[in-house]
């Protein structure tokens, strides 16, 4: 690694400038660098303001009394900060949010494991093995994503009801364990951007497909695996429709469903809703932060900077 970096730094792409005189070119380089940095941070910061507004607004709203929610212009800092909104919201529902979190964590963790295993296997099959009907089946898989859920969920519900699994976590977990087109397609793209020469070499050595899958492709596509884990977490954590449809008992609900139980026609409870939305967002952001640090390291493109 170190060798490569050194090499990148010592290479001399700017030689034409250097010829004009060492001091001068160094100054230009430095100024360029500084301007570049300033521009970079300016763009980053202004973008971040746009993208951070939701969080700021949600936190602000969660600390307000109900009566200030609709004020315009927005009251960003409420005169009396209502920390108790968080405690109230957590505890007023029975069962308390602890139960909803336990349910959601269970489902989400199960599904991440299932999705990672199944989608990488299936994607490997599509990306690496030549088998009968492969391209047709792949297109079929993509096609299944093109029919709106609104016309298919009732037959699927019927299936789960007939085998008696409504009001269990099963209808939420099993489909994820059997993968979906989105994740398979994504991983297939990453697998396909890795040269087949490695497979061929391994096969000459007598390695089977499973070895190539587990020993070569998986280690080389760690970032993609990380992406799938992050997205699977966020998707399952926030999934509203399926838990709404399949779970009946209050003690089985997930966080996403419970969040909508503050608001009814008679009671708005926006601050409480926002408080719990903020709390529900934290795990998603934490997982993202940790996973991106783990799977998507800093700069690898040594050439693009400066």
């Amino acid at each position, binding site marked *: 690694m170190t060798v490569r970096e050194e090499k990148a730094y010592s290479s001399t792409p700017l030689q034409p400038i250097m010829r004009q005189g060492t001091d001068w070119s160094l100054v230009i380089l430095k100024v360029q660098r500084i301007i570049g940095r300033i521009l970079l941070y300016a763009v980053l910061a202004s973008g971040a303001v746009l993208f951070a507004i939701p969080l700021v607004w949600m936190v602000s709203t969660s600390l307000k009394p*109900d009566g200030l929610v609709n004020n315009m212009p927005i009251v960003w800092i409420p005169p009396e900060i209502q920390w108790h909104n968080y405690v109230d919201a957590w505890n007023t529902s029975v069962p308390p949010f602890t139960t909803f979190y336990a349910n959601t964590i269970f489902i989400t963790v199960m599904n991440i494991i299932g999705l990672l295993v199944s989608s990488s296997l299936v994607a490997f099959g599509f990306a690496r093995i030549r088998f009968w009907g492969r391209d047709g089946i792949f297109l079929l898989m993509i096609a299944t994503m093109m029919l709106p859920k609104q016309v298919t969920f009732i037959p699927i519900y019927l299936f789960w009801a*007939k085998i008696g699994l409504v009001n269990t976590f099963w209808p939420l977990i*099993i489909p994820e364990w059997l993968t979906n087109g989105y994740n398979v397609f994504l991983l297939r793209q990453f697998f396909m951007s890795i040269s087949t020469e490695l497979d061929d070499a391994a096969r000459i050595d007598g390695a089977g497909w499973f*070895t190539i899958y587990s020993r070569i492709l998986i280690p080389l596509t760690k970032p993609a695996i990380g992406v799938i884990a992050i997205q699977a977490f966020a998707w399952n954590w926030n999934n509203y*429709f399926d838990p709404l449809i399949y779970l009946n008992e209050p003690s089985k609900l997930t966080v996403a469903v419970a969040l909508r139980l503050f608001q009814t026609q008679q009671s708005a409870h926006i601050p409480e809703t926002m408080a719990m939305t903020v709390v529900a967002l934290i795990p998603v952001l934490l997982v993202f932060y940790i996973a991106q640090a783990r799977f998507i390291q800093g700069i690898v493109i040594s050439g693009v900077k400066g």
Partner: protein
Amino acid sequence: MQKSKLSRRDFLRTSALASVGLALVACAPAATTAPAASGGAAAAPAADVTTIRWMSRASAEENPIIQKHMDEVFSAKNPNIKVSIEPAPEGFEQKLLAQMVAGTAVDIFEAWGNIFFNWTERDLLLDIQSMVDRDLKDEQVKDYNDFQWQGLQMQGKRIGMPKYINVMTVTVNKDLFEKYGVDLPPEDGKWTHDDYAVMAQKLTEGARKAGNENQWGGWKPAWSWDRFWNTVYMFGGGIVDQKYGTKCLMDTKESQAGFQWMYDRIWKDNTFAQPGEIEKKWGDDALAPGFVAFIEDGTYPIGRDKKLGDAKVNWDMRHVPTGPTGKRSVLGTTDAWSITKQTKHPEEAWKVLSYLAGTDFQDAITVGLQGLIPVQKSRIANFITTVRKVRPSLEKVRLETIDELLKWNYAEDGFWFKKQQAAFDLINPALSKVFEVGDVGPEYLAELTAKVNASQA
């Protein structure tokens, strides 16, 4: 690479392991199924206990209290029935329809007019008329308000029992009236739409003179399918010729005058706020931040008094003014509880349903917990005292208005075409064009009449 030879066996073994894992996990949730919703002091276990599943729209806060009440009070009286609440947030219609297709629908659910109408058309709701005739005394039936009792009879079937009362009044922000030196509407309701327009005008002018560009006289959701027609009625017009009729009346002179009145307030004088100027959906969202001095909207502020209290809005309620014909009309909603047709326990479900619409539950939960108006006329006086005890801020609010409103009997449940949804699908976008966007006048609604008539053929 010593493992390389094992490739396929390896794979098979792994997948076998995975499926065992899957099977193991299968047991986990199944095991947690056992301790179901056995909360509360369980009723004396009877030999045959029927569980009635109730899909409730109440909030996370309220549901547990309601569950407890049903366990402790209802099941004590009816030891053979246990009620189990299943919360139903947004999207519950899809869930319930899926359940109905699968034959596993809850026994009781709650909804409102247009859902009931469409579902009655598909014969999805139990006709409870015979049970009502058998079990309810005449005076009990007469104690319900006409607009609800009649409204819940759809296409010849009685499809539900009223849940609570929500009627439209003029809710005023007294401080703003005082600030701009405008008289409050009279308590006895003796005022007209001309007075109404002048009041909105004065309030708006007052705000402008005070340098407040972001304040208007009033707010009325004329763009909403259930709120636009009452002005038309008061002007002597109509939407459809009769209940479940087919002839659209939006083009008559009277109807057009009613539409014009609303259109002018919103788009000509702008003394009523435009939807884009403030909040579109809820009146109290406009009232709480002081955007408007009054709203013509439902009785939600009673249940949401804390919000208005937080915002320090000093509010009160008045009758809507009469129209040029001397007629007064507002929406009274038909929110109700209903029994699904496929229930396996119609008798037990009816027991629960009649309990919910009975006085005990109405006093304890509808009024005591939710601050809603009970469905029995005889309970209104009691409601006023009870709700003031639970919510002291209502001491200053003239709740007697509601009592009078129900006695004067001017609440209605709206218009019903024979093919209501077909008419809705045409009228809704037009309403939004006239009142929400404002780029066409009420004549657009008159031009629509022929199309609406055609949709009923």
